[in-house]
Protein backbone atom coordinates (compact mmCIF):
# COMPACT_ATOMS: atom_id res chain seq x y z
CA UNK A 1 0.00 0.00 0.00
CA UNK A 2 0.97 3.64 -0.34
CA UNK A 3 2.81 5.20 2.55
CA UNK A 4 0.32 7.02 4.79
CA UNK A 5 0.37 10.78 4.31
CA UNK A 6 0.78 12.83 7.46
CA UNK A 7 0.38 16.57 7.34
CA UNK A 8 2.17 18.98 9.64
CA UNK A 9 1.14 22.61 9.98
CA UNK A 10 3.47 24.73 12.05
CA UNK A 11 2.93 28.32 13.09
CA UNK A 12 5.61 29.83 10.88
CA UNK A 13 8.29 28.82 8.49
CA UNK A 14 11.19 30.50 10.25
CA UNK A 15 10.96 30.02 13.98
CA UNK A 16 13.75 27.57 14.89
CA UNK A 17 11.40 25.90 17.35
CA UNK A 18 9.02 24.90 14.60
CA UNK A 19 11.78 24.15 12.17
CA UNK A 20 13.09 21.67 14.71
CA UNK A 21 9.62 20.26 15.15
CA UNK A 22 9.40 19.78 11.41
CA UNK A 23 12.77 18.07 11.25
CA UNK A 24 11.75 15.75 14.06
CA UNK A 25 8.58 14.88 12.23
CA UNK A 26 10.40 14.25 8.96
CA UNK A 27 12.90 11.97 10.66
CA UNK A 28 10.24 10.03 12.51
CA UNK A 29 8.11 9.70 9.38
CA UNK A 30 11.07 8.35 7.45
CA UNK A 31 11.75 5.86 10.19
CA UNK A 32 8.15 4.66 10.30
CA UNK A 33 7.64 4.67 6.53
CA UNK A 34 5.15 7.53 6.30
CA UNK A 35 5.12 10.50 3.93
CA UNK A 36 5.22 13.85 5.69
CA UNK A 37 3.97 17.05 4.07
CA UNK A 38 4.96 20.09 6.08
CA UNK A 39 3.28 23.47 5.71
CA UNK A 40 3.00 26.55 7.85
CA UNK A 41 1.18 29.78 8.45
CA UNK A 42 2.61 32.78 6.65
CA UNK A 43 3.37 34.69 9.82
CA UNK A 44 2.89 34.38 13.53
CA UNK A 45 -0.83 34.63 14.15
CA UNK A 46 -1.86 33.81 10.58
CA UNK A 47 -5.02 31.75 10.91
CA UNK A 48 -6.31 32.00 7.37
CA UNK A 49 -3.12 30.45 6.01
CA UNK A 50 -3.45 27.53 8.41
CA UNK A 51 -7.08 26.96 7.46
CA UNK A 52 -6.06 26.84 3.83
CA UNK A 53 -3.21 24.47 4.60
CA UNK A 54 -5.56 22.21 6.53
CA UNK A 55 -8.00 22.05 3.65
CA UNK A 56 -5.28 21.40 1.11
CA UNK A 57 -3.79 18.62 3.20
CA UNK A 58 -7.18 16.96 3.46
CA UNK A 59 -7.51 17.29 -0.30
CA UNK A 60 -4.03 15.80 -0.66
CA UNK A 61 -5.25 12.69 1.15
CA UNK A 62 -3.63 13.14 4.56
CA UNK A 63 -5.23 10.88 7.13
CA UNK A 64 -3.51 12.53 10.07
CA UNK A 65 -2.84 16.23 10.46
CA UNK A 66 -0.62 17.67 13.16
CA UNK A 67 -1.18 21.36 13.78
CA UNK A 68 0.37 24.00 16.00
CA UNK A 69 -2.55 26.40 15.96
CA UNK A 70 -1.82 30.10 15.46
CA UNK A 71 -5.26 30.96 16.74
CA UNK A 72 -6.74 28.56 19.29
CA UNK A 73 -10.32 29.52 18.54
CA UNK A 74 -10.50 30.60 14.95
CA UNK A 75 -9.01 27.34 13.71
CA UNK A 76 -11.76 25.28 15.35
CA UNK A 77 -14.31 25.17 12.51
CA UNK A 78 -11.66 24.10 10.02
CA UNK A 79 -10.51 21.33 12.35
CA UNK A 80 -14.07 20.17 12.85
CA UNK A 81 -14.56 20.01 9.11
CA UNK A 82 -11.38 18.02 8.63
CA UNK A 83 -12.31 15.56 11.35
CA UNK A 84 -15.77 15.17 9.89
CA UNK A 85 -14.14 13.84 6.75
CA UNK A 86 -12.37 11.16 8.77
CA UNK A 87 -9.04 12.83 9.40
CA UNK A 88 -7.37 12.56 12.78
CA UNK A 89 -6.23 15.99 13.97
CA UNK A 90 -3.66 16.40 16.71
CA UNK A 91 -2.71 19.74 18.17
CA UNK A 92 0.96 20.26 18.90
CA UNK A 93 2.66 22.87 21.07
CA UNK A 94 -0.44 24.73 22.19
CA UNK A 95 -4.07 23.75 22.69
CA UNK A 96 -7.11 24.69 20.72
CA UNK A 97 -9.99 26.35 22.50
CA UNK A 98 -12.00 24.32 23.36
CA UNK A 99 -9.36 21.68 23.86
CA UNK A 100 -11.46 18.72 22.80
CA UNK A 101 -12.05 19.68 19.17
CA UNK A 102 -8.87 17.81 18.37
CA UNK A 103 -8.34 14.14 18.86
CA UNK A 104 -5.29 14.65 21.00
CA UNK A 105 -2.96 17.36 22.24
CA UNK A 106 0.79 17.08 22.73
CA UNK A 107 1.89 20.39 24.14
CA UNK A 108 3.87 22.55 26.45
CA UNK A 109 2.13 24.50 29.17
CA UNK A 110 3.37 27.98 28.32
CA UNK A 111 1.90 29.58 31.40
CA UNK A 112 3.80 27.07 33.50
CA UNK A 113 6.96 27.69 31.49
CA UNK A 114 6.65 31.33 32.45
CA UNK A 115 5.93 30.47 36.04
CA UNK A 116 9.11 28.39 36.36
CA UNK A 117 11.43 31.17 35.27
CA UNK A 118 9.46 33.60 37.42
CA UNK A 119 10.06 31.47 40.47
CA UNK A 120 13.71 31.10 39.58
CA UNK A 121 14.11 34.85 39.10
CA UNK A 122 12.40 35.55 42.41
CA UNK A 123 14.86 33.27 44.20
CA UNK A 124 17.89 34.56 42.29
CA UNK A 125 17.08 38.20 42.98
CA UNK A 126 17.27 37.30 46.63
CA UNK A 127 15.12 40.12 47.86
CA UNK A 128 16.75 42.80 45.70
CA UNK A 129 14.17 45.34 44.49
CA UNK A 130 13.28 44.22 40.99
CA UNK A 131 13.42 46.67 38.06
CA UNK A 132 11.99 44.55 35.30
CA UNK A 133 12.06 44.77 31.51
CA UNK A 134 9.90 42.40 29.52
CA UNK A 135 10.50 41.58 25.87
CA UNK A 136 7.26 40.13 24.59
CA UNK A 137 6.31 38.44 21.37
CA UNK A 138 3.91 40.62 19.42
CA UNK A 139 0.59 42.25 20.13
CA UNK A 140 -2.24 39.84 20.65
CA UNK A 141 -0.34 36.58 20.60
CA UNK A 142 -1.61 34.06 23.20
CA UNK A 143 1.73 32.32 23.74
CA UNK A 144 3.31 35.69 24.45
CA UNK A 145 0.60 36.53 26.95
CA UNK A 146 0.74 33.14 28.70
CA UNK A 147 4.49 33.23 29.23
CA UNK A 148 4.39 36.88 30.26
CA UNK A 149 1.61 36.44 32.78
CA UNK A 150 3.02 33.13 34.00
CA UNK A 151 6.36 34.77 34.67
CA UNK A 152 4.69 37.45 36.77
CA UNK A 153 2.76 34.79 38.67
CA UNK A 154 5.94 32.87 39.39
CA UNK A 155 7.60 36.07 40.53
CA UNK A 156 4.69 36.76 42.81
CA UNK A 157 3.47 39.92 41.15
CA UNK A 158 -0.14 40.76 40.30
CA UNK A 159 -1.01 39.08 37.04
CA UNK A 160 -3.73 37.70 34.80
CA UNK A 161 -5.11 34.21 34.32
CA UNK A 162 -3.69 31.62 31.96
CA UNK A 163 -6.33 32.09 29.25
CA UNK A 164 -5.96 35.87 29.09
CA UNK A 165 -4.57 37.39 25.95
CA UNK A 166 -3.64 40.65 27.63
CA UNK A 167 -0.34 41.48 29.25
CA UNK A 168 -0.36 42.36 32.93
CA UNK A 169 1.76 45.35 33.85
CA UNK A 170 2.61 45.78 37.52
CA UNK A 171 4.66 48.84 38.50
CA UNK A 172 7.84 46.81 38.93
CA UNK A 173 7.84 46.36 35.16
CA UNK A 174 9.43 49.55 33.88
CA UNK A 175 9.65 48.65 30.24
CA UNK A 176 7.68 46.35 27.96
CA UNK A 177 8.49 46.04 24.28
CA UNK A 178 7.76 43.67 21.42
CA UNK A 179 10.64 41.59 20.15
CA UNK A 180 8.72 39.39 17.69
CA UNK A 181 10.92 36.64 19.10
CA UNK A 182 13.59 38.02 16.83
CA UNK A 183 17.21 38.67 17.63
CA UNK A 184 17.58 42.03 15.94
CA UNK A 185 14.29 43.41 17.18
CA UNK A 186 15.10 42.13 20.67
CA UNK A 187 18.33 44.08 20.56
CA UNK A 188 16.63 47.30 19.46
CA UNK A 189 13.91 46.87 22.07
CA UNK A 190 16.44 46.37 24.86
CA UNK A 191 18.46 49.39 23.77
CA UNK A 192 15.41 51.57 23.99
CA UNK A 193 14.44 50.06 27.35
CA UNK A 194 17.88 50.81 28.75
CA UNK A 195 17.59 54.33 27.48
CA UNK A 196 14.33 54.62 29.33
CA UNK A 197 15.59 53.11 32.56
CA UNK A 198 19.29 52.32 32.92
CA UNK A 199 18.72 50.55 36.24
CA UNK A 200 16.94 47.50 34.88
CA UNK A 201 18.16 44.45 36.76
CA UNK A 202 15.84 41.71 35.60
CA UNK A 203 14.97 40.83 32.03
CA UNK A 204 12.27 38.45 30.93
CA UNK A 205 12.50 37.43 27.30
CA UNK A 206 9.89 35.60 25.27
CA UNK A 207 12.55 33.32 23.83
CA UNK A 208 16.28 32.86 23.60
CA UNK A 209 17.04 34.62 20.30
CA UNK A 210 15.44 37.80 21.65
CA UNK A 211 17.39 37.32 24.88
CA UNK A 212 20.62 36.97 22.90
CA UNK A 213 19.85 40.20 21.06
CA UNK A 214 19.07 41.93 24.35
CA UNK A 215 22.32 40.66 25.80
CA UNK A 216 24.17 42.26 22.91
CA UNK A 217 22.51 45.56 23.75
CA UNK A 218 23.39 45.18 27.41
CA UNK A 219 26.97 44.35 26.60
CA UNK A 220 27.26 47.40 24.39
CA UNK A 221 26.03 49.49 27.30
CA UNK A 222 28.42 47.69 29.68
CA UNK A 223 25.51 46.46 31.78
CA UNK A 224 25.47 42.74 31.10
CA UNK A 225 26.90 41.93 34.54
CA UNK A 226 24.24 43.56 36.70
CA UNK A 227 21.25 41.94 35.15
CA UNK A 228 19.48 38.63 35.39
CA UNK A 229 18.09 37.29 32.13
CA UNK A 230 15.47 34.58 31.99
CA UNK A 231 13.81 33.17 28.87
CA UNK A 232 11.71 30.31 27.55
CA UNK A 233 12.45 27.68 24.88
CA UNK A 234 15.48 25.53 25.63
CA UNK A 235 16.87 25.30 22.13
CA UNK A 236 20.43 24.07 21.77
CA UNK A 237 21.69 27.60 21.04
CA UNK A 238 19.77 28.87 24.06
CA UNK A 239 21.21 26.23 26.36
CA UNK A 240 24.67 27.18 25.12
CA UNK A 241 23.85 30.74 26.14
CA UNK A 242 22.84 29.51 29.58
CA UNK A 243 26.19 27.75 29.75
CA UNK A 244 27.97 30.97 28.78
CA UNK A 245 26.10 32.87 31.44
CA UNK A 246 24.24 35.03 28.95
CA UNK A 247 20.95 33.63 30.16
CA UNK A 248 20.49 32.65 33.80
CA UNK A 249 17.66 30.25 33.33
CA UNK A 250 15.32 29.02 30.65
CA UNK A 251 12.23 26.86 30.54
CA UNK A 252 12.96 24.06 28.14
CA UNK A 253 10.26 22.57 25.98
CA UNK A 254 10.34 19.59 23.64
CA UNK A 255 9.17 20.11 20.08
CA UNK A 256 10.94 17.01 18.78
CA UNK A 257 9.09 14.90 21.24
CA UNK A 258 5.79 16.45 20.23
CA UNK A 259 6.52 15.83 16.58
CA UNK A 260 7.66 12.26 17.07
CA UNK A 261 4.63 11.43 19.17
CA UNK A 262 2.35 12.97 16.59
CA UNK A 263 3.86 11.09 13.68
CA UNK A 264 3.81 7.84 15.58
CA UNK A 265 0.14 8.34 16.39
CA UNK A 266 -0.53 9.02 12.73
CA UNK A 267 1.17 5.85 11.59
CA UNK A 268 -0.64 3.89 14.24
CA UNK A 269 -3.96 5.32 13.02
CA UNK A 270 -3.16 4.40 9.45
CA UNK A 271 -2.26 0.87 10.41
CA UNK A 272 -4.86 0.03 13.00
CA UNK A 273 -7.48 2.76 12.78
CA UNK A 274 -6.92 3.54 16.43
CA UNK A 275 -6.95 7.26 17.19
CA UNK A 276 -4.81 8.98 19.78
CA UNK A 277 -6.66 10.93 22.44
CA UNK A 278 -6.32 13.22 25.43
CA UNK A 279 -3.74 15.75 26.52
CA UNK A 280 -0.12 14.77 26.83
CA UNK A 281 1.94 17.42 28.49
CA UNK A 282 5.29 17.07 26.80
CA UNK A 283 6.70 18.87 29.78
CA UNK A 284 8.82 21.86 30.60
CA UNK A 285 12.06 21.71 32.50
CA UNK A 286 13.82 24.60 34.10
CA UNK A 287 17.45 24.70 33.02
CA UNK A 288 19.81 26.89 35.01
CA UNK A 289 23.55 27.13 35.36
CA UNK A 290 23.28 28.09 39.02
CA UNK A 291 20.50 26.29 40.85
CA UNK A 292 18.54 28.30 43.40
CA UNK A 293 17.33 26.93 46.67
CA UNK A 294 13.68 25.96 46.62
CA UNK A 295 13.45 25.89 42.85
CA UNK A 296 13.79 22.63 40.98
CA UNK A 297 16.13 22.93 38.04
CA UNK A 298 18.36 20.82 35.82
CA UNK A 299 21.92 21.68 34.95
CA UNK A 300 23.23 22.76 31.58
CA UNK A 301 24.57 19.36 30.70
CA UNK A 302 21.17 17.76 31.05
CA UNK A 303 19.67 20.65 29.18
CA UNK A 304 22.11 20.31 26.31
CA UNK A 305 21.53 16.60 26.04
CA UNK A 306 17.80 17.18 25.85
CA UNK A 307 17.71 20.41 23.93
CA UNK A 308 14.33 20.58 22.27
CA UNK A 309 13.91 16.88 22.85
CA UNK A 310 16.97 15.61 21.02
CA UNK A 311 17.31 11.88 21.75
Amino acid at each position, binding site marked *: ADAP*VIGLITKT*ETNPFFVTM*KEGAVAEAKKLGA*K*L*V*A*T*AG*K*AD*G*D*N*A*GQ*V*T*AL*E*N*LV*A*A*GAKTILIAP*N*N*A*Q*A*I*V*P*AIKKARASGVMVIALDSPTDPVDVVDALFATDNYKAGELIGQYAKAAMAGKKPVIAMLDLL*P*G*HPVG*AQRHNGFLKGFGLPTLEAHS*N*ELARPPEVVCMADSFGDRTKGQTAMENCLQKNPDINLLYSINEPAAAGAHKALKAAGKEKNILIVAVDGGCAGIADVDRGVIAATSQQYPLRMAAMGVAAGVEYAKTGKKASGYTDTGVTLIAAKPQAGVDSQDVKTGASLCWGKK
Partner: protein
Amino acid sequence: MPSITFRRPPQVTLATLGPFIALILACAFFASQSERFLSAQNFSLILQQVMVVAVIAIGQTLVILTAGIDLSCGMVMALGSIVMTKMAASHDLSAPLAIACGIAVTVLFGLVNGLLVTKIALPPFIVTLGTMNIAFAITQLYSDAQTITDIPEGMTLLGGTFVLGQTAIVWGAVLMLALYLIVWFALRETAPGRHVYAVGNNPEATRLTGIATDRVLLGVYMLAGLFYGIAALLSVARTGAGDPNAGQTENLDAISAVVLGGTSLFGGRGMILGTLVGALIVGVFRNGLTLMGVSSVYQILVTGILVILAVATDQLSRQGVR
Protein backbone atom coordinates in the same frame (compact mmCIF):
# COMPACT_ATOMS: atom_id res chain seq x y z
CA MET B 1 -4.99 57.06 -44.76
CA PRO B 2 -3.10 53.94 -43.81
CA SER B 3 -5.49 52.62 -41.24
CA ILE B 4 -8.01 49.86 -41.39
CA THR B 5 -11.17 49.64 -39.37
CA PHE B 6 -10.98 47.34 -36.42
CA ARG B 7 -12.81 46.98 -33.19
CA ARG B 8 -10.06 46.50 -30.66
CA PRO B 9 -6.31 46.54 -31.12
CA PRO B 10 -5.01 42.98 -30.77
CA GLN B 11 -2.50 43.95 -28.05
CA VAL B 12 -5.35 44.58 -25.64
CA THR B 13 -6.80 41.15 -26.14
CA LEU B 14 -3.45 39.54 -25.48
CA ALA B 15 -2.67 41.63 -22.44
CA THR B 16 -5.97 40.50 -21.05
CA LEU B 17 -5.47 36.89 -21.94
CA GLY B 18 -1.90 36.80 -20.61
CA PRO B 19 -2.57 36.04 -16.95
CA PHE B 20 -5.30 33.65 -18.00
CA ILE B 21 -2.86 31.67 -20.10
CA ALA B 22 -0.49 31.54 -17.15
CA LEU B 23 -3.30 30.17 -15.00
CA ILE B 24 -4.19 27.52 -17.57
CA LEU B 25 -0.54 26.50 -17.85
CA ALA B 26 -0.27 26.18 -14.08
CA CYS B 27 -3.45 24.09 -13.94
CA ALA B 28 -2.23 21.84 -16.74
CA PHE B 29 1.04 21.32 -14.91
CA PHE B 30 -0.59 20.40 -11.61
CA ALA B 31 -3.14 18.17 -13.30
CA SER B 32 -0.26 16.20 -14.77
CA GLN B 33 1.38 15.90 -11.36
CA SER B 34 -1.53 14.91 -9.15
CA GLU B 35 -4.69 13.09 -10.10
CA ARG B 36 -6.47 14.78 -7.23
CA PHE B 37 -6.01 18.23 -8.68
CA LEU B 38 -8.45 18.13 -11.57
CA SER B 39 -11.76 17.75 -9.79
CA ALA B 40 -14.71 20.06 -9.44
CA GLN B 41 -14.48 19.69 -5.72
CA ASN B 42 -10.86 20.76 -5.61
CA PHE B 43 -11.63 23.84 -7.70
CA SER B 44 -14.47 24.68 -5.38
CA LEU B 45 -11.97 24.42 -2.53
CA ILE B 46 -9.52 26.75 -4.23
CA LEU B 47 -12.25 29.29 -4.89
CA GLN B 48 -13.19 29.17 -1.26
CA GLN B 49 -9.60 29.66 -0.17
CA VAL B 50 -9.02 32.69 -2.33
CA MET B 51 -12.40 34.33 -1.83
CA VAL B 52 -11.32 36.68 0.96
CA VAL B 53 -8.17 37.89 -0.76
CA ALA B 54 -10.00 38.04 -4.07
CA VAL B 55 -12.64 40.38 -2.68
CA ILE B 56 -10.02 42.55 -1.01
CA ALA B 57 -8.23 42.61 -4.35
CA ILE B 58 -11.30 44.10 -6.03
CA GLY B 59 -10.95 47.16 -3.84
CA GLN B 60 -7.21 47.16 -4.36
CA THR B 61 -7.67 47.02 -8.13
CA LEU B 62 -9.90 50.07 -8.07
CA VAL B 63 -7.35 51.98 -6.01
CA ILE B 64 -4.44 50.89 -8.20
CA LEU B 65 -6.35 51.81 -11.36
CA THR B 66 -6.36 55.38 -10.06
CA ALA B 67 -2.55 55.15 -9.70
CA GLY B 68 -2.86 54.72 -5.93
CA ILE B 69 -2.07 51.87 -3.61
CA ASP B 70 -3.79 50.68 -0.45
CA LEU B 71 -1.60 49.12 2.19
CA SER B 72 -4.37 49.28 4.76
CA CYS B 73 -6.66 46.78 3.04
CA GLY B 74 -5.88 43.71 5.15
CA MET B 75 -5.92 45.48 8.49
CA VAL B 76 -9.12 47.33 7.67
CA MET B 77 -10.66 44.00 6.74
CA ALA B 78 -9.56 42.57 10.11
CA LEU B 79 -11.01 45.55 11.92
CA GLY B 80 -14.27 45.12 10.07
CA SER B 81 -14.51 41.49 11.07
CA ILE B 82 -13.77 42.32 14.70
CA VAL B 83 -16.34 45.09 14.76
CA MET B 84 -19.08 42.98 13.27
CA THR B 85 -18.42 39.95 15.45
CA LYS B 86 -18.00 41.97 18.62
CA MET B 87 -21.14 43.99 17.92
CA ALA B 88 -23.02 40.72 17.74
CA ALA B 89 -21.24 38.91 20.54
CA SER B 90 -20.86 41.65 23.15
CA HIS B 91 -23.60 44.08 22.26
CA ASP B 92 -26.18 41.54 21.16
CA LEU B 93 -26.88 43.24 17.88
CA SER B 94 -28.69 41.16 15.27
CA ALA B 95 -26.51 39.74 12.53
CA PRO B 96 -27.57 42.17 9.79
CA LEU B 97 -27.12 45.16 12.06
CA ALA B 98 -23.74 43.97 13.30
CA ILE B 99 -22.61 43.34 9.75
CA ALA B 100 -23.73 46.82 8.80
CA CYS B 101 -21.67 48.26 11.66
CA GLY B 102 -18.59 46.39 10.52
CA ILE B 103 -18.98 47.50 6.94
CA ALA B 104 -19.64 51.06 8.07
CA VAL B 105 -16.29 51.07 9.82
CA THR B 106 -14.42 49.80 6.77
CA VAL B 107 -16.14 52.34 4.55
CA LEU B 108 -15.23 55.02 7.08
CA PHE B 109 -11.60 54.02 6.78
CA GLY B 110 -11.95 54.27 3.02
CA LEU B 111 -13.40 57.73 3.47
CA VAL B 112 -10.47 58.78 5.65
CA ASN B 113 -7.98 57.40 3.14
CA GLY B 114 -9.80 59.16 0.35
CA LEU B 115 -9.99 62.50 2.14
CA LEU B 116 -6.30 62.48 2.98
CA VAL B 117 -5.40 61.58 -0.59
CA THR B 118 -7.65 64.19 -2.18
CA LYS B 119 -7.93 67.11 0.22
CA ILE B 120 -4.35 67.21 1.49
CA ALA B 121 -2.89 65.56 -1.60
CA LEU B 122 -0.81 63.08 0.38
CA PRO B 123 0.73 60.10 -1.42
CA PRO B 124 -1.58 57.08 -1.09
CA PHE B 125 1.34 54.95 0.04
CA ILE B 126 1.92 57.14 3.12
CA VAL B 127 -1.75 57.59 3.91
CA THR B 128 -2.51 53.90 3.85
CA LEU B 129 0.71 53.04 5.67
CA GLY B 130 -0.63 55.25 8.45
CA THR B 131 -4.18 53.94 8.41
CA MET B 132 -2.86 50.38 8.23
CA ASN B 133 -1.14 50.89 11.57
CA ILE B 134 -4.14 52.70 13.00
CA ALA B 135 -6.55 49.98 11.93
CA PHE B 136 -4.29 47.31 13.39
CA ALA B 137 -3.99 49.08 16.73
CA ILE B 138 -7.72 49.70 16.97
CA THR B 139 -8.36 46.06 16.14
CA GLN B 140 -6.11 44.93 18.97
CA LEU B 141 -7.50 47.42 21.47
CA TYR B 142 -11.13 46.92 20.61
CA SER B 143 -10.90 43.13 20.65
CA ASP B 144 -8.53 42.98 23.64
CA ALA B 145 -6.53 40.82 21.25
CA GLN B 146 -9.13 38.09 21.82
CA THR B 147 -10.60 36.01 19.07
CA ILE B 148 -14.36 36.37 19.00
CA THR B 149 -16.08 33.06 18.45
CA ASP B 150 -19.49 33.51 19.94
CA ILE B 151 -21.16 34.77 16.79
CA PRO B 152 -24.72 34.39 15.53
CA GLU B 153 -25.72 31.96 12.81
CA GLY B 154 -26.74 34.74 10.48
CA MET B 155 -23.21 35.95 10.19
CA THR B 156 -21.78 32.73 8.82
CA LEU B 157 -24.46 32.02 6.23
CA LEU B 158 -22.01 32.81 3.44
CA GLY B 159 -19.77 30.03 4.71
CA GLY B 160 -22.54 27.51 4.04
CA THR B 161 -22.58 25.39 0.92
CA PHE B 162 -24.98 24.22 -1.72
CA VAL B 163 -24.50 21.24 -3.95
CA LEU B 164 -24.17 21.51 -7.69
CA GLY B 165 -23.74 18.22 -9.45
CA GLN B 166 -21.73 16.46 -6.81
CA THR B 167 -19.71 19.47 -5.75
CA ALA B 168 -20.32 21.48 -2.63
CA ILE B 169 -19.92 25.16 -3.38
CA VAL B 170 -19.64 27.87 -0.76
CA TRP B 171 -22.08 30.74 -1.05
CA GLY B 172 -19.28 33.17 -0.34
CA ALA B 173 -17.43 32.06 -3.46
CA VAL B 174 -20.57 32.71 -5.47
CA LEU B 175 -20.83 36.17 -3.94
CA MET B 176 -17.19 36.79 -4.78
CA LEU B 177 -17.71 35.81 -8.41
CA ALA B 178 -20.83 37.94 -8.56
CA LEU B 179 -18.93 40.95 -7.22
CA TYR B 180 -16.30 40.49 -9.89
CA LEU B 181 -18.95 40.41 -12.58
CA ILE B 182 -20.62 43.53 -11.23
CA VAL B 183 -17.38 45.47 -11.00
CA TRP B 184 -16.31 44.23 -14.41
CA PHE B 185 -19.57 45.48 -15.81
CA ALA B 186 -19.35 48.79 -13.98
CA LEU B 187 -15.79 49.50 -15.04
CA ARG B 188 -16.52 48.66 -18.63
CA GLU B 189 -20.01 49.84 -19.28
CA THR B 190 -20.73 52.78 -17.01
CA ALA B 191 -19.57 56.38 -16.95
CA PRO B 192 -18.16 56.30 -13.40
CA GLY B 193 -16.22 53.18 -14.33
CA ARG B 194 -14.53 54.89 -17.25
CA HIS B 195 -13.74 57.87 -15.04
CA VAL B 196 -11.76 55.58 -12.74
CA TYR B 197 -9.56 54.65 -15.69
CA ALA B 198 -9.29 58.25 -16.85
CA VAL B 199 -8.20 59.51 -13.42
CA GLY B 200 -5.46 56.90 -13.30
CA ASN B 201 -4.42 57.38 -16.89
CA ASN B 202 -3.97 61.15 -16.88
CA PRO B 203 -5.25 62.88 -13.75
CA GLU B 204 -4.54 66.38 -15.01
CA ALA B 205 -6.26 65.84 -18.34
CA THR B 206 -9.19 64.28 -16.56
CA ARG B 207 -9.46 67.28 -14.26
CA LEU B 208 -9.31 69.59 -17.27
CA THR B 209 -12.14 67.78 -19.03
CA GLY B 210 -14.29 68.81 -16.10
CA ILE B 211 -14.50 65.56 -14.19
CA ALA B 212 -14.44 66.04 -10.42
CA THR B 213 -11.37 63.87 -9.99
CA ASP B 214 -11.44 64.30 -6.22
CA ARG B 215 -14.92 62.92 -6.09
CA VAL B 216 -13.93 59.96 -8.25
CA LEU B 217 -10.97 59.21 -5.96
CA LEU B 218 -13.04 59.58 -2.83
CA GLY B 219 -15.63 57.24 -4.29
CA VAL B 220 -12.98 54.70 -5.19
CA TYR B 221 -11.45 54.64 -1.72
CA MET B 222 -14.88 54.34 -0.11
CA LEU B 223 -15.89 51.59 -2.48
CA ALA B 224 -12.64 49.85 -1.67
CA GLY B 225 -13.60 50.13 1.99
CA LEU B 226 -16.92 48.54 1.15
CA PHE B 227 -15.19 45.61 -0.49
CA TYR B 228 -12.90 45.20 2.51
CA GLY B 229 -16.04 45.12 4.64
CA ILE B 230 -17.55 42.40 2.49
CA ALA B 231 -14.24 40.54 2.67
CA ALA B 232 -14.45 40.86 6.44
CA LEU B 233 -17.85 39.21 6.37
CA LEU B 234 -16.53 36.45 4.13
CA SER B 235 -13.60 35.90 6.44
CA VAL B 236 -15.91 35.64 9.45
CA ALA B 237 -18.13 33.26 7.53
CA ARG B 238 -15.18 31.16 6.46
CA THR B 239 -13.44 30.83 9.83
CA GLY B 240 -16.48 31.23 12.05
CA ALA B 241 -14.64 33.74 14.17
CA GLY B 242 -13.54 37.34 14.39
CA ASP B 243 -9.77 37.09 14.30
CA PRO B 244 -7.77 40.14 15.45
CA ASN B 245 -4.63 38.72 13.87
CA ALA B 246 -6.14 38.37 10.43
CA GLY B 247 -5.19 40.60 7.57
CA GLN B 248 -1.47 40.85 8.16
CA THR B 249 -0.30 39.41 4.88
CA GLU B 250 -3.34 40.33 2.83
CA ASN B 251 -2.02 43.61 1.55
CA LEU B 252 0.93 42.07 -0.26
CA ASP B 253 -1.27 39.17 -1.38
CA ALA B 254 -3.91 41.48 -2.77
CA ILE B 255 -1.47 43.79 -4.51
CA SER B 256 0.26 40.74 -5.97
CA ALA B 257 -3.03 39.44 -7.31
CA VAL B 258 -3.70 42.79 -8.96
CA VAL B 259 -0.26 43.01 -10.55
CA LEU B 260 -0.20 39.35 -11.58
CA GLY B 261 -3.56 40.05 -13.20
CA GLY B 262 -1.91 42.54 -15.50
CA THR B 263 -2.95 45.85 -13.93
CA SER B 264 -0.28 48.52 -14.04
CA LEU B 265 0.88 50.00 -10.74
CA PHE B 266 1.08 53.31 -12.60
CA GLY B 267 -2.67 53.39 -12.98
CA GLY B 268 -5.17 53.63 -15.79
CA ARG B 269 -4.48 50.26 -17.38
CA GLY B 270 -5.80 46.90 -16.33
CA MET B 271 -8.71 44.53 -16.14
CA ILE B 272 -10.62 43.55 -13.05
CA LEU B 273 -11.02 39.97 -14.24
CA GLY B 274 -7.25 39.77 -14.46
CA THR B 275 -7.16 40.32 -10.72
CA LEU B 276 -9.40 37.32 -10.15
CA VAL B 277 -7.07 35.28 -12.30
CA GLY B 278 -4.11 36.66 -10.34
CA ALA B 279 -5.69 35.63 -7.04
CA LEU B 280 -6.48 32.21 -8.45
CA ILE B 281 -2.92 31.71 -9.66
CA VAL B 282 -1.66 32.07 -6.10
CA GLY B 283 -4.38 29.76 -4.76
CA VAL B 284 -3.72 27.16 -7.46
CA PHE B 285 0.02 27.16 -6.74
CA ARG B 286 -0.54 26.65 -3.05
CA ASN B 287 -3.12 23.92 -3.54
CA GLY B 288 -1.32 22.15 -6.35
CA LEU B 289 2.02 22.11 -4.58
CA THR B 290 0.47 20.73 -1.41
CA LEU B 291 -1.28 18.02 -3.42
CA MET B 292 2.09 17.15 -4.92
CA GLY B 293 3.39 16.79 -1.39
CA VAL B 294 5.88 19.64 -1.66
CA SER B 295 6.83 20.95 1.75
CA SER B 296 6.29 24.57 2.45
CA VAL B 297 9.81 25.98 2.23
CA TYR B 298 10.09 24.40 -1.18
CA GLN B 299 6.60 25.65 -1.95
CA ILE B 300 7.80 29.18 -1.35
CA LEU B 301 10.83 28.57 -3.54
CA VAL B 302 8.75 27.07 -6.32
CA THR B 303 6.10 29.79 -6.03
CA GLY B 304 8.80 32.42 -6.45
CA ILE B 305 10.10 30.75 -9.58
CA LEU B 306 6.66 30.02 -11.01
CA VAL B 307 5.42 33.58 -10.53
CA ILE B 308 8.30 34.87 -12.60
CA LEU B 309 8.00 32.08 -15.16
CA ALA B 310 4.28 32.56 -15.57
CA VAL B 311 4.55 36.26 -16.27
CA ALA B 312 7.69 35.82 -18.36
CA THR B 313 6.04 33.24 -20.61
CA ASP B 314 3.16 35.59 -21.11
CA GLN B 315 5.49 38.49 -21.86
CA LEU B 316 7.71 36.54 -24.22
CA SER B 317 4.77 35.09 -26.12
CA ARG B 318 3.43 38.59 -26.55
CA GLN B 319 6.73 39.84 -27.89
CA GLY B 320 6.74 36.90 -30.27
CA VAL B 321 3.31 37.78 -31.59
CA ARG B 322 4.26 41.38 -32.24
